[in-house]
Protein backbone atom coordinates (compact mmCIF):
# COMPACT_ATOMS: atom_id res chain seq x y z
CA UNK A 1 0.00 0.00 0.00
CA UNK A 2 3.01 2.30 -0.36
CA UNK A 3 4.52 3.06 -3.77
CA UNK A 4 7.79 1.56 -4.82
CA UNK A 5 10.63 4.09 -4.89
CA UNK A 6 10.87 6.41 -7.90
CA UNK A 7 12.72 9.55 -8.88
CA UNK A 8 10.62 12.70 -9.10
CA UNK A 9 10.80 15.68 -11.42
CA UNK A 10 8.47 18.65 -11.43
CA UNK A 11 8.31 20.30 -14.88
CA UNK A 12 6.79 23.53 -16.10
CA UNK A 13 6.07 22.73 -19.76
CA UNK A 14 5.29 19.95 -22.20
CA UNK A 15 8.76 20.40 -23.74
CA UNK A 16 10.48 19.71 -20.41
CA UNK A 17 8.15 16.77 -19.80
CA UNK A 18 8.81 15.05 -23.14
CA UNK A 19 12.56 15.61 -22.78
CA UNK A 20 12.40 13.84 -19.41
CA UNK A 21 10.20 11.11 -20.91
CA UNK A 22 12.75 10.55 -23.68
CA UNK A 23 15.49 10.20 -21.10
CA UNK A 24 13.43 8.06 -18.73
CA UNK A 25 12.47 5.44 -21.29
CA UNK A 26 9.56 3.09 -20.91
CA UNK A 27 9.45 3.20 -17.11
CA UNK A 28 8.90 6.96 -16.97
CA UNK A 29 5.38 8.13 -16.19
CA UNK A 30 3.60 11.46 -16.30
CA UNK A 31 1.59 12.45 -13.24
CA UNK A 32 -0.95 15.28 -13.24
CA UNK A 33 -3.77 15.01 -10.67
CA UNK A 34 -2.72 11.52 -9.65
CA UNK A 35 -6.29 10.35 -9.08
CA UNK A 36 -5.78 7.35 -11.35
CA UNK A 37 -2.03 6.87 -11.18
CA UNK A 38 -1.53 7.25 -7.43
CA UNK A 39 -3.83 4.32 -6.54
CA UNK A 40 -1.93 2.25 -9.14
CA UNK A 41 1.34 3.25 -7.44
CA UNK A 42 0.00 2.54 -3.96
CA UNK A 43 -1.14 -0.90 -5.11
CA UNK A 44 2.16 -1.34 -6.97
CA UNK A 45 0.28 -2.05 -10.17
CA UNK A 46 2.54 0.61 -11.66
CA UNK A 47 6.21 0.82 -10.71
CA UNK A 48 7.72 3.70 -12.66
CA UNK A 49 11.40 4.61 -12.38
CA UNK A 50 10.59 8.31 -12.54
CA UNK A 51 7.47 10.40 -12.10
CA UNK A 52 7.30 13.56 -14.18
CA UNK A 53 4.89 15.96 -12.52
CA UNK A 54 3.02 18.31 -14.86
CA UNK A 55 0.44 19.43 -12.28
CA UNK A 56 2.05 22.87 -11.91
CA UNK A 57 2.77 23.37 -15.63
CA UNK A 58 0.70 26.52 -16.26
CA UNK A 59 1.13 26.29 -20.03
CA UNK A 60 -0.81 23.00 -19.92
CA UNK A 61 -3.58 24.37 -17.72
CA UNK A 62 -6.17 25.93 -20.04
CA UNK A 63 -9.57 25.60 -21.64
CA UNK A 64 -9.91 27.28 -25.03
CA UNK A 65 -12.21 27.17 -28.00
CA UNK A 66 -10.76 26.21 -31.35
CA UNK A 67 -12.62 25.55 -34.60
CA UNK A 68 -15.76 23.76 -33.46
CA UNK A 69 -13.99 22.21 -30.48
CA UNK A 70 -13.11 22.94 -26.88
CA UNK A 71 -9.46 22.17 -26.18
CA UNK A 72 -8.43 21.17 -22.69
CA UNK A 73 -4.80 21.12 -21.58
CA UNK A 74 -3.18 18.18 -19.84
CA UNK A 75 -2.98 19.90 -16.45
CA UNK A 76 -6.56 21.20 -16.42
CA UNK A 77 -8.54 19.79 -13.56
CA UNK A 78 -12.01 18.35 -13.93
CA UNK A 79 -13.39 20.91 -11.45
CA UNK A 80 -12.06 23.73 -13.67
CA UNK A 81 -13.94 22.38 -16.68
CA UNK A 82 -17.04 21.76 -14.56
CA UNK A 83 -16.97 25.43 -13.51
CA UNK A 84 -16.19 26.71 -17.02
CA UNK A 85 -18.74 29.30 -18.17
CA UNK A 86 -19.28 27.68 -21.56
CA UNK A 87 -19.87 24.15 -20.31
CA UNK A 88 -23.65 24.08 -20.48
CA UNK A 89 -23.96 25.75 -23.88
CA UNK A 90 -20.82 24.41 -25.61
CA UNK A 91 -20.47 20.95 -24.03
CA UNK A 92 -23.95 19.95 -22.88
CA UNK A 93 -23.07 16.25 -22.89
CA UNK A 94 -20.18 16.82 -20.49
CA UNK A 95 -22.41 19.07 -18.41
CA UNK A 96 -24.83 16.15 -18.06
CA UNK A 97 -22.03 13.67 -17.35
CA UNK A 98 -20.09 15.67 -14.75
CA UNK A 99 -22.22 14.82 -11.71
CA UNK A 100 -21.36 11.16 -12.37
CA UNK A 101 -17.61 11.73 -12.64
CA UNK A 102 -16.00 10.67 -9.37
CA UNK A 103 -16.79 12.88 -6.40
CA UNK A 104 -16.47 16.56 -5.51
CA UNK A 105 -13.31 15.55 -3.63
CA UNK A 106 -11.72 13.84 -6.64
CA UNK A 107 -12.70 16.33 -9.34
CA UNK A 108 -10.81 19.07 -7.49
CA UNK A 109 -7.53 17.40 -8.38
CA UNK A 110 -8.22 14.85 -11.12
CA UNK A 111 -7.56 16.06 -14.65
CA UNK A 112 -9.56 15.56 -17.84
CA UNK A 113 -6.58 14.30 -19.84
CA UNK A 114 -5.50 12.06 -16.95
CA UNK A 115 -8.80 10.24 -17.09
CA UNK A 116 -8.45 9.85 -20.87
CA UNK A 117 -4.89 8.52 -20.47
CA UNK A 118 -5.93 6.06 -17.77
CA UNK A 119 -8.57 4.73 -20.20
CA UNK A 120 -10.82 2.96 -17.75
CA UNK A 121 -13.62 1.35 -19.80
CA UNK A 122 -16.28 2.65 -17.40
CA UNK A 123 -15.03 6.26 -17.18
CA UNK A 124 -17.30 9.04 -18.33
CA UNK A 125 -14.78 11.42 -19.93
CA UNK A 126 -13.43 8.85 -22.45
CA UNK A 127 -17.01 7.82 -23.25
CA UNK A 128 -18.03 11.42 -23.96
CA UNK A 129 -14.93 11.91 -26.12
CA UNK A 130 -15.76 8.76 -28.08
CA UNK A 131 -19.42 9.54 -28.72
CA UNK A 132 -18.69 13.18 -29.65
CA UNK A 133 -15.84 12.11 -31.95
CA UNK A 134 -13.17 14.13 -30.17
CA UNK A 135 -9.40 14.09 -30.50
CA UNK A 136 -6.30 13.68 -28.38
CA UNK A 137 -2.95 15.41 -29.01
CA UNK A 138 0.14 13.37 -28.23
CA UNK A 139 3.58 14.90 -27.99
CA UNK A 140 7.04 13.37 -27.81
CA UNK A 141 10.57 14.72 -28.11
CA UNK A 142 10.35 14.05 -31.85
CA UNK A 143 7.02 15.70 -32.59
CA UNK A 144 3.29 15.87 -32.22
CA UNK A 145 0.42 13.81 -33.57
CA UNK A 146 -3.33 13.86 -33.21
CA UNK A 147 -5.49 10.77 -32.82
CA UNK A 148 -9.26 10.40 -32.91
CA UNK A 149 -10.86 9.12 -29.71
CA UNK A 150 -11.54 5.79 -31.44
CA UNK A 151 -7.87 5.37 -32.40
CA UNK A 152 -6.53 6.65 -29.07
CA UNK A 153 -8.19 4.25 -26.65
CA UNK A 154 -7.30 0.72 -27.70
CA UNK A 155 -8.78 -1.30 -24.84
CA UNK A 156 -9.04 -1.68 -21.09
CA UNK A 157 -6.55 0.74 -19.49
CA UNK A 158 -4.64 0.87 -22.76
CA UNK A 159 -4.13 3.58 -25.35
CA UNK A 160 -2.11 4.13 -28.54
CA UNK A 161 0.30 6.34 -26.58
CA UNK A 162 3.85 5.15 -27.26
CA UNK A 163 6.89 5.20 -24.99
CA UNK A 164 8.14 8.78 -24.88
CA UNK A 165 4.74 10.26 -25.69
CA UNK A 166 2.38 12.16 -23.45
CA UNK A 167 -1.14 13.47 -23.86
CA UNK A 168 -0.85 17.26 -24.05
CA UNK A 169 -4.45 18.15 -24.86
CA UNK A 170 -7.87 16.76 -25.68
CA UNK A 171 -10.53 18.33 -27.87
CA UNK A 172 -14.25 17.84 -27.37
CA UNK A 173 -16.48 18.95 -30.31
CA UNK A 174 -18.92 21.71 -29.34
CA UNK A 175 -22.69 21.32 -29.50
CA UNK A 176 -24.27 21.64 -32.92
CA UNK A 177 -27.61 23.26 -33.66
CA UNK A 178 -30.37 20.69 -33.97
CA UNK A 179 -28.67 18.11 -31.79
CA UNK A 180 -29.78 16.92 -28.35
CA UNK A 181 -27.48 15.35 -25.78
CA UNK A 182 -28.13 13.13 -22.77
CA UNK A 183 -26.11 11.10 -20.31
CA UNK A 184 -26.99 8.58 -17.64
CA UNK A 185 -25.36 5.75 -15.79
CA UNK A 186 -25.98 2.99 -13.31
CA UNK A 187 -23.55 2.50 -10.43
CA UNK A 188 -23.95 0.98 -6.99
CA UNK A 189 -23.45 4.36 -5.36
CA UNK A 190 -23.02 7.87 -6.72
CA UNK A 191 -19.41 8.28 -7.78
CA UNK A 192 -18.65 4.57 -7.99
CA UNK A 193 -17.40 3.01 -11.20
CA UNK A 194 -20.26 2.75 -13.68
CA UNK A 195 -21.75 -0.69 -14.24
CA UNK A 196 -23.06 0.78 -17.48
CA UNK A 197 -22.65 4.41 -18.62
CA UNK A 198 -24.61 5.75 -21.58
CA UNK A 199 -24.22 8.89 -23.69
CA UNK A 200 -26.60 9.76 -26.52
CA UNK A 201 -26.74 12.33 -29.31
CA UNK A 202 -29.84 12.79 -31.46
CA UNK A 203 -30.62 15.08 -34.38
CA UNK A 204 -33.51 15.10 -36.85
CA UNK A 205 -32.16 12.11 -38.77
CA UNK A 206 -29.69 10.19 -36.62
CA UNK A 207 -29.19 8.69 -33.21
CA UNK A 208 -25.77 8.01 -31.76
CA UNK A 209 -25.33 5.96 -28.59
CA UNK A 210 -22.10 5.36 -26.72
CA UNK A 211 -21.77 2.74 -24.00
CA UNK A 212 -19.11 2.52 -21.31
CA UNK A 213 -18.55 -0.16 -18.70
CA UNK A 214 -19.52 -3.16 -20.82
CA UNK A 215 -16.94 -3.70 -23.59
CA UNK A 216 -13.22 -3.14 -23.00
CA UNK A 217 -13.52 0.45 -24.23
CA UNK A 218 -16.29 2.94 -24.93
CA UNK A 219 -18.26 1.71 -27.93
CA UNK A 220 -20.36 3.90 -30.19
CA UNK A 221 -23.13 2.98 -32.59
CA UNK A 222 -25.09 5.18 -34.95
CA UNK A 223 -28.50 4.60 -36.47
CA UNK A 224 -30.94 6.45 -38.69
CA UNK A 225 -33.73 7.64 -36.46
CA UNK A 226 -35.55 4.63 -34.99
CA UNK A 227 -38.81 4.32 -33.10
CA UNK A 228 -40.74 1.64 -31.23
CA UNK A 229 -39.83 -1.96 -31.82
CA UNK A 230 -37.13 -1.13 -34.34
CA UNK A 231 -35.28 0.80 -31.63
CA UNK A 232 -35.75 -2.08 -29.16
CA UNK A 233 -34.29 -4.49 -31.68
CA UNK A 234 -31.35 -2.23 -32.45
CA UNK A 235 -30.58 -1.79 -28.74
CA UNK A 236 -30.85 -5.52 -28.12
CA UNK A 237 -28.43 -6.23 -30.94
CA UNK A 238 -26.03 -3.60 -29.63
CA UNK A 239 -26.29 -5.02 -26.10
CA UNK A 240 -25.30 -8.50 -27.32
CA UNK A 241 -22.54 -7.19 -29.59
CA UNK A 242 -20.88 -5.42 -26.65
CA UNK A 243 -19.98 -8.81 -25.16
CA UNK A 244 -20.43 -7.95 -21.49
CA UNK A 245 -19.08 -10.12 -18.69
CA UNK A 246 -20.06 -11.21 -15.18
CA UNK A 247 -18.20 -9.62 -12.29
CA UNK A 248 -18.86 -8.97 -8.62
CA UNK A 249 -21.00 -5.93 -9.43
CA UNK A 250 -23.29 -7.27 -12.13
CA UNK A 251 -23.92 -10.13 -14.51
CA UNK A 252 -23.54 -9.82 -18.28
CA UNK A 253 -27.29 -10.35 -18.53
CA UNK A 254 -27.99 -7.42 -16.21
CA UNK A 255 -25.62 -5.25 -18.23
CA UNK A 256 -27.47 -6.12 -21.43
CA UNK A 257 -30.75 -5.23 -19.75
CA UNK A 258 -29.33 -1.87 -18.70
CA UNK A 259 -28.22 -1.17 -22.25
CA UNK A 260 -31.72 -1.97 -23.52
CA UNK A 261 -33.65 -0.03 -20.87
CA UNK A 262 -31.38 2.91 -20.15
CA UNK A 263 -30.41 3.04 -23.84
CA UNK A 264 -34.00 3.79 -24.77
CA UNK A 265 -34.34 6.29 -21.94
CA UNK A 266 -31.18 8.22 -22.76
CA UNK A 267 -32.04 8.32 -26.49
CA UNK A 268 -35.54 9.63 -25.73
CA UNK A 269 -34.01 12.27 -23.50
CA UNK A 270 -31.51 13.33 -26.17
CA UNK A 271 -34.35 13.61 -28.71
CA UNK A 272 -36.48 15.66 -26.34
CA UNK A 273 -33.77 18.22 -25.63
CA UNK A 274 -32.80 18.87 -29.26
CA UNK A 275 -32.03 22.53 -29.76
Amino acid at each position, binding site marked *: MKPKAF*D*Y*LKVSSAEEAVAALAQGGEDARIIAGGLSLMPML*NFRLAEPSILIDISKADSLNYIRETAGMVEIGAATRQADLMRWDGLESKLPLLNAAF*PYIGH*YQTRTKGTVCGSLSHADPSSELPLCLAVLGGEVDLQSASGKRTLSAADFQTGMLSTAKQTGEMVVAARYPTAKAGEGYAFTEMAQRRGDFAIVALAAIADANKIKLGIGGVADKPTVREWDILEGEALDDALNEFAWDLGGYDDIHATARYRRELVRRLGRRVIEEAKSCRS
Partner: protein
Amino acid sequence: MPQLNKDARHSVTLTLNGDEVTGYAEPRMLLSDFLTHEIGITSCHVGCEHGVCGACTVLVDGTVMRGCLTLAVQAEGSTVETAENLASDEGELSELQQAFKKHHGLQCGYCTPGILMSLTAYLKENPKPTEEELRDMLSGHLCRCTGYVGMVKAVLDYCENRTD
Protein backbone atom coordinates in the same frame (compact mmCIF):
# COMPACT_ATOMS: atom_id res chain seq x y z
CA MET B 1 13.30 22.13 -9.44
CA PRO B 2 16.05 19.52 -9.89
CA GLN B 3 15.26 15.85 -10.26
CA LEU B 4 14.79 14.26 -6.83
CA ASN B 5 16.59 10.97 -6.31
CA LYS B 6 14.42 8.09 -5.20
CA ASP B 7 16.77 6.90 -2.46
CA ALA B 8 17.37 10.25 -0.79
CA ARG B 9 15.24 12.13 1.69
CA HIS B 10 14.45 15.62 0.50
CA SER B 11 13.59 18.66 2.52
CA VAL B 12 9.91 19.62 2.24
CA THR B 13 8.76 22.93 3.67
CA LEU B 14 5.14 23.93 3.76
CA THR B 15 2.82 26.22 5.66
CA LEU B 16 0.71 23.99 7.87
CA ASN B 17 -2.23 25.65 9.59
CA GLY B 18 -0.42 28.97 9.46
CA ASP B 19 2.98 27.77 10.66
CA GLU B 20 5.96 27.01 8.48
CA VAL B 21 7.08 23.42 9.01
CA THR B 22 9.88 21.39 7.45
CA GLY B 23 10.31 17.65 7.23
CA TYR B 24 12.12 15.15 5.05
CA ALA B 25 10.59 12.81 2.50
CA GLU B 26 11.64 10.35 -0.14
CA PRO B 27 9.78 11.08 -3.40
CA ARG B 28 7.48 8.10 -2.78
CA MET B 29 6.29 9.37 0.60
CA LEU B 30 2.58 10.16 0.66
CA LEU B 31 1.47 13.51 2.03
CA SER B 32 -0.72 11.66 4.55
CA ASP B 33 2.33 9.82 5.93
CA PHE B 34 4.45 12.97 5.86
CA LEU B 35 1.94 14.97 7.89
CA THR B 36 1.49 12.15 10.39
CA HIS B 37 4.99 10.74 10.82
CA GLU B 38 7.27 13.62 9.89
CA ILE B 39 5.28 16.56 11.20
CA GLY B 40 3.31 14.78 13.91
CA ILE B 41 -0.27 15.90 13.37
CA THR B 42 -2.98 13.39 14.25
CA SER B 43 -5.99 14.39 12.13
CA CYS B 44 -4.93 13.09 8.71
CA HIS B 45 -6.37 9.61 9.07
CA VAL B 46 -5.38 6.89 6.66
CA GLY B 47 -8.19 4.52 5.78
CA CYS B 48 -8.00 2.89 2.36
CA GLU B 49 -4.88 4.54 0.99
CA HIS B 50 -6.22 4.57 -2.56
CA GLY B 51 -8.45 7.62 -2.61
CA VAL B 52 -11.79 6.01 -1.92
CA CYS B 53 -12.59 6.56 1.77
CA GLY B 54 -11.69 10.23 2.13
CA ALA B 55 -10.44 10.00 5.73
CA CYS B 56 -7.10 11.64 4.79
CA THR B 57 -8.69 14.62 3.01
CA VAL B 58 -6.80 17.88 3.59
CA LEU B 59 -6.71 21.27 1.89
CA VAL B 60 -3.66 22.06 -0.23
CA ASP B 61 -3.63 25.70 -1.32
CA GLY B 62 -7.31 25.78 -0.46
CA THR B 63 -8.16 22.83 -2.70
CA VAL B 64 -9.61 19.57 -1.38
CA MET B 65 -7.14 16.74 -1.87
CA ARG B 66 -6.76 13.16 -0.79
CA GLY B 67 -3.61 13.07 1.32
CA CYS B 68 -2.92 9.52 0.19
CA LEU B 69 -3.03 10.48 -3.50
CA THR B 70 -0.62 13.37 -3.09
CA LEU B 71 3.13 13.08 -2.66
CA ALA B 72 4.83 15.03 0.09
CA VAL B 73 7.33 16.44 -2.41
CA GLN B 74 4.44 17.76 -4.51
CA ALA B 75 3.32 19.87 -1.55
CA GLU B 76 6.67 21.68 -1.25
CA GLY B 77 5.94 25.39 -0.82
CA SER B 78 2.19 24.84 -0.46
CA THR B 79 -0.25 25.95 2.19
CA VAL B 80 -1.81 22.93 3.88
CA GLU B 81 -4.79 23.00 6.21
CA THR B 82 -5.90 20.13 8.41
CA ALA B 83 -8.62 19.72 11.01
CA GLU B 84 -6.24 20.98 13.71
CA ASN B 85 -6.86 24.39 12.17
CA LEU B 86 -10.59 24.43 12.89
CA ALA B 87 -10.83 24.92 16.65
CA SER B 88 -9.52 28.10 18.28
CA ASP B 89 -6.12 28.15 19.93
CA GLU B 90 -7.93 27.88 23.26
CA GLY B 91 -9.56 24.66 22.08
CA GLU B 92 -13.03 26.02 21.43
CA LEU B 93 -14.65 24.04 18.64
CA SER B 94 -15.63 25.85 15.44
CA GLU B 95 -19.34 26.29 14.78
CA LEU B 96 -19.25 23.48 12.24
CA GLN B 97 -17.58 21.17 14.76
CA GLN B 98 -20.11 22.16 17.42
CA ALA B 99 -22.94 21.32 15.01
CA PHE B 100 -21.42 17.89 14.44
CA LYS B 101 -21.30 17.37 18.20
CA LYS B 102 -24.86 18.57 18.74
CA HIS B 103 -26.39 16.41 15.99
CA HIS B 104 -24.36 13.25 16.57
CA GLY B 105 -22.56 13.79 13.27
CA LEU B 106 -19.84 11.39 14.31
CA GLN B 107 -19.41 8.27 16.33
CA CYS B 108 -15.92 6.78 16.19
CA GLY B 109 -14.67 9.97 14.54
CA TYR B 110 -12.20 8.37 12.17
CA CYS B 111 -13.76 9.84 9.02
CA THR B 112 -14.64 13.17 10.66
CA PRO B 113 -11.49 15.31 10.10
CA GLY B 114 -11.53 14.54 6.37
CA ILE B 115 -15.21 15.39 6.13
CA LEU B 116 -14.73 18.64 8.03
CA MET B 117 -11.94 19.66 5.66
CA SER B 118 -14.06 18.84 2.58
CA LEU B 119 -16.90 20.86 4.05
CA THR B 120 -14.58 23.76 4.82
CA ALA B 121 -13.78 24.14 1.12
CA TYR B 122 -17.17 23.08 -0.23
CA LEU B 123 -19.24 25.48 1.89
CA LYS B 124 -17.16 28.39 0.61
CA GLU B 125 -18.25 27.49 -2.94
CA ASN B 126 -21.79 26.55 -1.97
CA PRO B 127 -22.73 28.15 1.36
CA LYS B 128 -26.34 26.89 1.39
CA PRO B 129 -26.44 23.45 -0.21
CA THR B 130 -29.69 21.55 -0.53
CA GLU B 131 -29.85 18.23 1.27
CA GLU B 132 -29.44 16.46 -2.06
CA GLU B 133 -26.36 18.48 -2.98
CA LEU B 134 -24.93 17.89 0.46
CA ARG B 135 -25.51 14.15 0.33
CA ASP B 136 -23.93 14.03 -3.11
CA MET B 137 -20.86 15.84 -1.80
CA LEU B 138 -20.68 13.62 1.30
CA SER B 139 -20.70 10.54 -0.94
CA GLY B 140 -16.99 11.26 -1.40
CA HIS B 141 -16.43 10.12 2.19
CA LEU B 142 -17.06 6.76 3.78
CA CYS B 143 -18.59 6.78 7.27
CA ARG B 144 -19.28 3.34 8.68
CA CYS B 145 -20.86 4.48 11.97
CA THR B 146 -23.47 7.13 11.47
CA GLY B 147 -25.34 6.49 8.25
CA TYR B 148 -24.77 10.20 7.53
CA VAL B 149 -28.13 11.33 8.95
CA GLY B 150 -26.68 13.26 11.90
CA MET B 151 -23.97 14.67 9.68
CA VAL B 152 -26.49 16.01 7.16
CA LYS B 153 -28.55 17.55 9.98
CA ALA B 154 -25.43 19.11 11.46
CA VAL B 155 -24.37 20.77 8.23
CA LEU B 156 -27.87 22.02 7.33
CA ASP B 157 -28.26 23.45 10.86
CA TYR B 158 -24.84 25.08 10.65
CA CYS B 159 -25.57 26.60 7.24
CA GLU B 160 -28.87 27.98 8.52
CA ASN B 161 -27.62 29.44 11.78
CA ARG B 162 -23.92 30.12 11.41
CA THR B 163 -22.47 33.36 12.71
CA ASP B 164 -18.82 32.70 11.76
